[in-house]
């Protein structure tokens, strides 16, 4: 019953999306006032129905209803509660349902809460959102029905990939999806504004909270995914340039650029056409990401299903929506007036440079990700990995950080070169001091990329707090603090990356109980290895006593696990976090004569990577709160004003 109800809710929601599109079209193109009133309730109803379908699927997983194909293929009755729950989106169909549920929920949110836009643009935006949703409903209902029945029902399920059996699964995909799909809202706003020719500062102020919200979630999602991969895979790395990681990074890069250009549009009414273009690109990257992950065209732990029809379906959607938006852009761009002018030395100009560099990085990641697919079509198999990405992304990021030192302290429109130079002097001094200190104090030769990374991080750290210099801190708006915190987060994160890559130590050993090893001042002693059992796995667990200067500071228990359904071995690494880094311990295979493989890393300041990312996201949260508090029009006045405009 639940499955049928979920499916019915989905079909109904799809119909409503069609209705929403037609209504919005009549309202915007023909000025039909009845239709104008109906669009918002329909959008909300559609959101509620799809949310209901998602709840139904979760209920099926929780009840372990093995008469549903998806549950039988991906769940198991003996699985812990949280993985039954999260398992609902740990597969292709479920994750697409989650995608559309988030999409229609954000459509409903736009219908309910958006008050900054003029009414026609608002309705056009909801129409565009409905148009995107229809494609995804079609994809879900025709090519990946999550509620398909299995007859006869399976005795029990096949279980969930053990690598996915981690609490991270409960949070990581929904956060990323909220971010991905939040960019669909930005896309719809851009299409709506192009349709009604209302690309201006008011539009920018209205779109900004949505872009910020999506960007915050993407930032959290990527950081969480990176940390998850770091401890779950047990390889000691925190970013692998895996195509699926790139798929989440590309929308983030575009959203970061969009965020900055929206600020220019809101504050100075400049970069109009460029901002619209970025909104389209950002959502295009979300869809490219979905295509790469969902088509199974890539080898990855994320590639749940290898089904070419699904890949072509998403590719077709990508072509229709992005092609359509670009065509609309080309048709309407001449009606978008050029914005306000500015000098080459101004905050606007620096933000243009920021945007261009972010787009260059985006392009480099995109090329690196698609190149293997391209060569495969031509018959040679090539893999593009960290050597390529580090070689191209590192230097461009460093250049961008140089501009990040100058940009935030410049004035809008034009600035005095001498004054600008004076303001950046402290940052330059910090850079020089850091450069010298690293060269003098390092206990080993440091590569030029980490060296310059630490140098740039120091400069950015100083420059990012400079906007607060000599200001009344109590009267400084919250969004300025947001900017300061986010830029500081960039410095912190880059410092962590540079430090980890330059100063990590590694020990690989075959250890018998009683053996101990020294690494960066820590002593790791293997006490014993014992078997242990969990709810759906068994494991060998090592007891490692960690001491420093003769004092015991912790006991780590890394495991080599073996999951029963499906039968798969995995590694459970252990991280011991200190203020200045992490000790990372992995238990490997059993060897002959009672020895065990042990892999130990000392990673100095590695936690700064995610700490910095969290600061970036929190900076976004501060900016979001600050902007909404200042710019949100009073609800009782705004609709009357909009009504008058719509009639005019």
């Amino acid at each position, binding site marked *: 019953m639940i499955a049928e109800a979920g499916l019915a809710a989905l079909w109904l929601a799809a119909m409503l999306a069609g209705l929403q599109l037609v209504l919005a079209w009549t309202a915007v193109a023909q000025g039909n006032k009845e239709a104008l009133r109906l669009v918002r309730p329909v959008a909300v109803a559609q959101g509620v129905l799809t949310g209901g379908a998602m709840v139904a699927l979760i209920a099926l997983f929780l009840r372990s209803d093995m008469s549903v194909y998806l549950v039988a293929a991906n769940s198991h009755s003996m699985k812990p509660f949280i993985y039954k729950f999260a398992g609902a989106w740990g597969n292709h169909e479920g994750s697409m349902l989650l995608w559309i549920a988030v999409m229609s929920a954000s459509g409903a949110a736009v219908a309910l809460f958006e008050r900054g836009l003029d009414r026609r643009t608002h309705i056009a935006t909801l129409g565009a959102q409905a148009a995107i949703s229809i494609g995804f409903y079609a994809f879900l209902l025709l090519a990946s029905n999550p509620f398909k029945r299995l007859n006869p029902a399976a005795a029990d399920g096949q279980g969930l990939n053990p690598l996915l059996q981690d609490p991270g699964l409960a949070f990581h995909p929904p956060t990323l999806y909220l971010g991905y799909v939040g960019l669909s809202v930005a896309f719809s706003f851009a299409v709506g504004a192009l349709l009604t020719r209302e690309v201006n500062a008011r539009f920018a102020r209205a779109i900004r909270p949505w872009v910020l919200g999506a960007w915050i979630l993407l930032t959290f999602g990527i950081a969480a995914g990176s940390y998850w991969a770091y401890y779950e895979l047990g390889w000691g790395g925190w970013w692998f340039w895996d195509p699926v990681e790139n798929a989440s990074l590309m929308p983030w890069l575009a959203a970061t650029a969009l965020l900055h250009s929206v600020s220019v549009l809101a504050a100075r009414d400049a970069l109009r056409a460029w901002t619209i273009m970025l909104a389209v690109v950002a959502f295009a990257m979300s869809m490219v990401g979905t295509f790469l992950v969902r088509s199974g065209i890539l080898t990855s732990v994320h590639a749940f299903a290898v089904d070419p029809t699904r890949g072509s379906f998403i590719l077709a959607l990508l072509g229709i929506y992005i092609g359509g938006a670009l065509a609309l852009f080309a048709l309407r761009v001449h009606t978008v007036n050029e914005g306000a002018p500015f000098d080459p030395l101004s905050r606007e100009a620096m933000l243009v440079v920021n945007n261009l560099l972010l787009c260059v990085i985006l392009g480099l990641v995109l090329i690196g990700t698609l190149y293997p697919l391209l060569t495969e079509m031509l018959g040679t198999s090539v893999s593009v990995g960290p050597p390529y990405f580090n070689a191209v992304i590192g230097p461009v990021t460093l250049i961008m950080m140089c501009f990040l030192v100058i940009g935030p302290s410049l004035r809008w429109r034009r600035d005095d070169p001498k004054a600008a130079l004076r303001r950046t002097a402290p940052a330059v001094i910090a850079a020089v001091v850091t450069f010298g200190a690293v060269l003098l104090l390092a206990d080993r030769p440091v590569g030029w990329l980490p060296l310059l990374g630490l140098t740039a991080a120091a400069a950015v750290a100083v420059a990012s707090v400079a906007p607060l210099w000599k200001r009344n801190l109590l009267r400084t708006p919250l969004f300025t603090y947001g900017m300061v915190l986010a830029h500081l987060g960039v410095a912190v994160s880059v410092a962590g990356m540079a430090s980890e890559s330059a100063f990590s130590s590694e020990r690989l050993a075959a250890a018998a109980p009683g053996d101990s090893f020294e690494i960066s001042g820590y002593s790791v002693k293997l006490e014993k290895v014992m078997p242990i059992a969990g709810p759906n796995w068994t494991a060998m667990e090592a007891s490692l006593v960690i001491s420093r200067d003769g004092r015991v500071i912790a006991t780590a228990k890394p495991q080599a696990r073996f999951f029963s359904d499906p039968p798969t071995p995995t590694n459970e690494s252990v991280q011991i976090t200190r203020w200045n880094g992490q000790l990372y311990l992995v238990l490997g*295979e059993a060897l002959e004569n009672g020895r065990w493989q042990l892999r130990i890393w000392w990673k100095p300041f590695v936690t700064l990577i995610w700490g910095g990312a969290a600061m970036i996201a929190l900076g976004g949260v501060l900016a979001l709160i600050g902007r909404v508090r200042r710019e949100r029009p009073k609800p009782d006045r705004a609709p009357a004003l909009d009504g008058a405009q719509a009639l005019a």
Partner: protein
Amino acid sequence: MVVASGRQGPKRKHQRLMLVLMALGALIGGVLLAMSALKSQAAYFYTPAEALAAKVEPGKAIRLGGMVEASSLKRRNDGVSVDFRLTDGKASVAASFSGITPDLFKENSGAVAEGAFDEAGVFRATNILAKHDERYMPREMEGIQYDPTTHKVDTTAQ
């Protein structure tokens, strides 16, 4: 004044033109950077016979895929290094690796080794991908069958 002159036609045109030129410059620069990096950094996939035929130079990073030959997998005394041979049925190549090998890395099953040949012609792997399960395995290894007694590799299933 700059602000006043900015209101006039020529200056405005100039600004949009400048932006477009900068964007073009960034685009061209980015593509050139990507192409040069791809040329030197992209790792090609070879089977052992292809690698020998192509005479891959020592130190050049490649991916070598094949079956771990029967009774070729030996662990050294340090407990963490392994020596093995990868075969594609036509040729086989000696390889070595230090580190914790994937759980499903074993004789008679497929593996892709990332790394480079050394001067002696031994493949020094820096990373090994093994066939995890049906859902996660090196793409190049899909559908390859290996007969451990005859060392025949059947790629027709591909």
